[in-house]
């Protein structure tokens, strides 16, 4: 590994200047957990890393908005901070639940919410969860800022819609007390593994009826993907085996699941059918 420049700007403005380069080997760094692996595997050789650790502002910390409707989470918030937060456990319990099987303590202590999203790796656990929660991201660049839904961030395998020089500043999560969410991390090799299938679901229950629903599949596909047809089958339906079976078939039909070392395409489709049904039952309290 050749030497490189590591800088730690103290403001967003400084960071944006430091990142203003045509050199693709100039990159921002959050916790660095993914970058370090890519550098070790010689997949990426930086010329300059811009650590966002010191920039402060809206990038760090998290809090409920004044109107109580949105959780604003700074991009440099670490997973451990979320994991240990009583507020998060109360308003976004699915985040607390997801942390239990996400990587390990050492990674959670440094990995950041923004870096995790910007990495664009389809096997990560949080992106489908943010998506199913209806979260948006606030993005800051030289030309100003924009806010987009998390699902619009992902455009392909390790590909995001971030422009060069743009940074994710915050994740904005709506607080929806009537909704219930769950994340199923399905591993097929050792217990602790990258998921063969990540499945995040949110429902708005009305008794036995599913008033509204959001389903996001990850890991088995090239980016976190909303399963719109499966949602349509479920939306407005009363929970029963027949509906869940149809939703499972719709989910399988609308996705392009490929074979890899975690499972064949046919097997992962079976996992999708089964775990979709189980996840919906779980959030419906059935």
């Amino acid at each position, binding site marked *: 590994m050749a030497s490189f420049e590591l800088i730690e700007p103290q403001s967003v403005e400084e960071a944006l200047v430091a990142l203003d380069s045509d050199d693709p080997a100039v990159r921002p760094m959050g916790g660095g957990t993914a970058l370090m692996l890519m550098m070790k595997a010689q997949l990426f050789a930086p010329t300059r890393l811009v650590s966002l650790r010191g920039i402060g502002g809206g990038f760090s910390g998290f809090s409920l908005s004044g109107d109580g409707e949105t959780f604003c989470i700074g991009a440099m918030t670490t997973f451990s901070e979320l994991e240990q937060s009583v507020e998060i456990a109360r308003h976004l319990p699915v985040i607390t639940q997801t942390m239990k099987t996400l990587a390990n303590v050492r990674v959670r202590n440094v990995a950041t919410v923004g870096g995790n999203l910007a990495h664009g790796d389809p096997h990560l656990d949080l992106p489908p969860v943010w998506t199913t929660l209806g979260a948006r991201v606030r993005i800051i660049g030289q030309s100003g800022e924009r806010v987009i839904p998390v699902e619009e961030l992902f455009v392909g395998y390790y590909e995001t819609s971030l422009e060069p020089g743009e940074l994710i500043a915050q994740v904005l999560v709506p607080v929806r007390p009537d909704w219930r969410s769950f994340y199923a991390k399905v591993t*097929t*090799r*050792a*217990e602790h593994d*990258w998921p063969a299938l990540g499945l995040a679901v949110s429902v708005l229950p009305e008794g036995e009826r599913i008033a509204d629903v959001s389903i996001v599949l990850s890991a088995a596909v090239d980016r976190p993907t909303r399963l719109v047809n499966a949602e349509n089958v479920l939306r407005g339906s009363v929970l029963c085996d027949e509906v869940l079976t149809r939703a499972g078939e719709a989910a399988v039909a609308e996705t392009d699941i490929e074979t890899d070392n975690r499972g064949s395409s*046919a097997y992962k489709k*079976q996992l999708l059918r089964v775990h979709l049904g189980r996840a919906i039952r779980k959030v419906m309290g059935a």
Partner: protein
Amino acid sequence: MTATTPAPSIGRSLPRLEARDKVTGRVEYVHHLRLPGMLYGKIFRSNVPHARIKSIDTAAAAALPGVYQVVTIEDIRKVIPHPYYGPAFHDQPILADGKVRFAGEPVAVVLAFDRKIAEDAVALITAEYEELPGIFDEIEAMTSDVLVHDELKPASTFPDLQHLKGRKGTNIALDYQLRRGDTEAGFAKADHVFEHTFCSQQVMHIPMEPFVSVADYQDGHLTLHTASQGPSFVRIEIARLLGLPENRVRVKVPFLGGGFGGKLYIKLEALVTALSMVAQRPVKISLTMEEQFYMVTRHPCHFTIKSGLTKEGKLIARHCEVIWNGGAYADIGPRVTQKAGFTSAGPYDIENVSINSYAVYTNRPPCGALRGFGAPQTAWAYESHTDMIAEAMGIDKVEFRRMNMLREGRPQASGTPLRDAEIERSLDHILDRMNWSLPFDRGSGTIKRGRGIAIGFKGITAPTTSVAIVNLFADGSCALYIGTVDMGQGSDTVMAQIAGEVLNLDAASIKVIHPDTDVTPYDMGTLGSRSTFHMGNAVKLAAQDAMGKIADLARELGLPEGANLPLADMLRKKYGMQAGNIIGTGSFIPDYEKPDTTTGLTKKGTPFWGVGAAGAEVEIDIETGAIKVTKLVNVADVGTAINPKAVQQQLSGAAIMQLGFTMTENMVFRDGQLTNGSLADYKIPTLLDIPREFINEHVPNAYDKDGPFGAKGAGESTTIALSPAIGNAVADALGVRIHDLPITPESIFRALQAAKGTPLEDCA
């Protein structure tokens, strides 16, 4: 000698002598070693599995500032004219020589003062290849026109391989056979005949300390500092390569961070030696975790087993056809083929047995010794087969085993009688810990539960020698000079306990001198569960020799019988001051009779029998195939447990390792390319994968008459029966049989769907 009598050493769970140094980070490993002027080597590897090398362009790498030299086989040939090595066959070039035979084979090395620069320079090397068709499957390789080697080149050190010398036009490196009775007649007489095939996958050792070696060659002398399990072998083989007498090659081995059979024979040692000779400087190579997948692995095995039975369920004939995928270089594969072939009919009393066991070359990374030395792969077949027969015949699985079990004094397939081998007591112990006679919860809803048992055994590499020296200093304190490598198994502690018992010294006060071939005497290697038995006997003999010399000294000094004068006082009396030594030596080689070359029969084919039994309970989700091993019991016959705590750690460690080989570990290849060569994608078990109930015990009050204080090896026994115990539990839960390892959720789900007549479509 101390005046007070220390507690007896044998049977005491003495804490590891090195424990404090290890947990405080003070232990010496090769990894830490830096010599003045030392260069770091980084390997450039082939990215194709089988090809002629047309050219290697090293110019850009050599031009990188900080690079000392880029070395290929042409440079090595100038210092070592015949640069081929190997324990069984001299088939492996120090660097690829005109051809590459597996993807990942070393082709060139960059030497630099800085490791990072060496790494950067490797990325600048390019090679042009003329690709050749590759052969990866062991069955195809048996008859393929694609040849991995043009000619077989057995090493002269193995007389029983000499008939293979110069053989051409084949990938079969060794064809071992055993013939006992008349198998065909047995099948003809049988009321029932069953035949099944089972496969084991390619897996790897993954020691936490990757391979690392340092060579320092100057003026016809070589010093190697290496993480090796076999320093004596390294010295002999490197001396042969260099044409030097053994006393010009010094091999030093500190503690190892795990070995598991991988760090045997020659690994990086020939390469760093050649590099040090070329560069005239010390050279170090440390592999990364990922590079370890291209050094040595465990044999995939394809085993077809056929049995004939009387209508009462007595086994009367068995044929074993065992094919071992040895990869591109033989390493110790031919020995695995023989030794595991030898016991491949299982611990059963069968009149007519025939065994064919083949070592086959393919274009995969080489395969060698790994904890169990082939026995786990064979037991996977014979113990799955045992349950299938019992099921088909409607006989209770335990009773069926008892009915056919090999018992004390009865000849095993080779004709070697079973002796001091607690097969039935191991089974009884398992049944007890499994609560086998109690009702069993079979699960409900989508969860099905099952349980299974298995038994297995192995022979031990023979004949092999261990030599030990006991040195009592002028003050009566003691040092033990042995070539056994403590790689985490606790051999330092156990050997000190054996010496302490004889010398009447506190074992914890004895200093164990680590292997340094200039200082420590010969040992065949720390392998195959042999150290406690072989080196333990040598240490015991050395200590007894020292005691004899002390008695001689007492007579010489005219001391009355039973005077019990401390040794320090006796030496002072003899020399007039604190001076002198008592040196005791011991050399051990077990009784052995070479097997008949055509029948494989022998009256004494193994120094002792390794015996293991296992029991497993599983819980399976039938909608997904997801499986949890909820209980696992492993029992081994270790003879006398010299250090019960160390034994227990060996049994549980071996079991966890085999659990990985059963459930999660699998080197996956596509067109000869490894697709999961990192720990992110090659999954070793973590704590979360350890069963909730995990019991590891040795058979109490077992005793091997030839072992030191009744002891035998403990490092491998619990690897043998574990896989089939789990496979049998799966079959018990679901009524479907998994034939190929690893047992994964997908393989279970596929088997379930196939049994229902709605098979899942094939992998894309």
